[in-house]
């Protein structure tokens, strides 16, 4: 097992990840290949019709380097068609296929981080080697689940 895979495995078995699983915030779809695991994140149906979005991660270099991920179609085992990406105010800037179909526009995504040093002023989300994949999942979960004051 490569270093990125063994560390990711440990983080997927850690309390922070499992707490999110218990709450139904996220879960593993496929992790036989720990360099390219598929993890789903629950999303408000106002933003994500299916109620969850699957993300296929690339964890090469993890956690020294941030992971990167893109929405994944688990039926076809391919990138999710741009028309099916999450929509809505809090999600649209992060899920932006017009920018890149292979990554999320997020301060914890290694592709999006390039050229965005100004995002460092948000240390909660700017990837650091001490982070785990839970930070990435939490960032996505926050964007996909705006508070619903009607309920």
């Amino acid at each position, binding site marked *: 097992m490569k270093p990125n895979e063994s560390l990711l495995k440990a983080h997927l078995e*850690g*309390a922070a990840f*499992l*707490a999110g699983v*218990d*709450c139904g*915030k996220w879960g593993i779809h496929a992790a036989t290949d720990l360099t390219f695991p598929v993890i789903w994140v629950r999303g408000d149906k106002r933003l994500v019709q299916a109620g969850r979005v699957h993300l296929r991660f690339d964890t090469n270099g993890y956690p020294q380097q941030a992971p990167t991920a893109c929405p994944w179609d688990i039926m076809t085992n391919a990138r999710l068609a741009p028309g099916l990406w999450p929509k809505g*105010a*809090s999600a649209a*800037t*992060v899920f932006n296929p017009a920018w890149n179909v292979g990554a999320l*526009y*997020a*301060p914890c995504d290694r592709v*999006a981080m390039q050229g*965005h040093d*100004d*995002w460092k002023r*948000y*240390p*909660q*989300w700017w990837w650091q080697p001490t982070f785990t994949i839970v930070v990435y999942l*939490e960032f996505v*979960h*926050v*964007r996909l*689940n*705006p*508070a619903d*004051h009607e309920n």
Partner: protein
Amino acid sequence: MVRIGTEALVEDLLKRIHEAGLCDGPSEDLHLFAEDAEEPLERGHSMEHCGVKHRHHVHCHKCHRIHVAVLYNGVEKDHSFPPSTKVKRVLKWAVSEFQLKGADAENKVLRLAEPPETELPNEAHIGSFAHPPKCGLKVCLVPPIRFQG
């Protein structure tokens, strides 16, 4: 992570939490709350008796209440919540207290008023952001950070 049987006493779990270094201070000073519960669990009761079941989450904190001051448009409103209160409940209270409706109420989050201006995830417990001996925090009611550029 601490695992314990549901037959164990709340007191036992507090000791285990203390031994694991998950919560500062002697176990006698700690309170254990069920999620969104108003009062701490009785120390002499079993987890089962308190309704805590397999994979349930509890919140351990030194503070019995967290005093939350919310800033919005230069106005401050405050209220005290149990530490295990989910952020979304505090957010809902704030939106109602500032009488925000429709588009004004939507797409709002709570962020720490002071650096690093952490965004408080809605599912998190408010007590996670208050560090004893301080049993309070100041937050801003704002739109989520918009990453652009």
